[in-house]
């Protein structure tokens, strides 16, 4: 597989997320607020720091971005308006925008159907996990 270099990946993440990682003052409030903290290998504040440092491949190799609930607690509570959820989304998009890298495939949906499962859940999951 063709790997872009980390500098290009960092630029792509900054461009499509429109996040200014340099605004972060490392208070940790984002990760302190995160309801998926335990499930995420890298926590919201680490997404900010790792993108800032250009440590992109580790984020791409992790499934942390799939554990984010996009609840915007990190974004709401950030005193510097950094919006970590947008970085998590950008990393997730870099992963699933590659051919064959969808995290959830439509074929897997029938096995997950339950009587009460709302359409909203399926649409949301497909939007988050596949392209």
């Amino acid at each position, binding site marked *: 597989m063709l790997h872009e270099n980390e500098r290009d990946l960092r630029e792509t993440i900054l461009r499509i997320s429109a996040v200014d990682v340099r605004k972060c003052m490392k208070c940790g409030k984002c990760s302190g607020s995160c*309801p998926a903290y335990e499930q995420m290998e890298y926590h919201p504040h680490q997404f900010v720091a790792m993108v800032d440092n250009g440590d992109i491949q580790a984020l791409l190799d992790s499934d942390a971005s799939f554990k984010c609930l996009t609840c915007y607690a990190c974004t709401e509570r950030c005193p510097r308006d950094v919006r970590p959820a947008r970085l998590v989304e*950008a990393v997730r998009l870099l992963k699933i925008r590659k051919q064959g890298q969808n995290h959830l495939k439509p074929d897997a949906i029938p096995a997950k159907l339950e009587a009460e*499962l709302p*359409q*909203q*859940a399926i649409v*949301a999951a497909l*939007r*988050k996990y596949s392209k």
Partner: protein
Amino acid sequence: MNYSYYPGCTLKTKAKELDRYARSSAEKLGLHLEELEDWQCCGAVYPQAEDEIATKLSAVRALAQAKEKGGKLVTLCSACHHVIKRVNLDMQNNEYIRTRVNNYIAPDAPYAGETQVLHYLELLRDELGFEQLKKSVVNPLKGRKIAAYYGCMLLRPAEEMGMDDPENPKILEDFLRALGAEPVLYPYRNECCGGYIALEDKGQARQNVDKILHSASLAGAEAVITACPLCLYNLAQNAGKERLPVLYFTELLAEALGVKEEA
């Protein structure tokens, strides 16, 4: 007053009650909801990336149609409201997105976020008024201790959603008071239920749901209300040992207005 109305995919299928009680209540209150023609699913999650254009189109199509029909669009599902409201702000404020979306859709007149997006709760609070709602109640829900569950999408990011204080909201509590019920305050009312993670990891959803229901239960709630079909599913289906009845807020509304049976 006439309003365009966007029900969304789930309100036509698993969440029919959310829609049905909302329509019968609106009629009783003299609020005329007209369903948009040929609306498309909003996508359920707001596409955050600057370069995501195709995923924003269905929301814009709904918004542009509402603009032609009076300029006020009422939403009900939390997810639809979240997506449509934020895409509308992109169309107002983000030239990159506005240009590309208009190039793609090629509407008769370019759409630039002119439509006003109102959640059904905002319709009751800001257009009708909770005082007026209170006057229309025929079956006050006296003595009913109800926990309002906001979840994420109605409130955050507050700068964009603009509905209420994201850390200490009161729109649902004020709504409950107008119906004569007793709102129960509890710490987890604006914490996430897990949302779509239920398809990926039920255990992760259950962990969140348990905290929310335990918190509501400790505060003395006999039931929980929500505006979101996915929250209702998680709270009702992915609960562990703590369980409470979970209802759509429109069901209580219809009950208080005396239109529940005919809905």
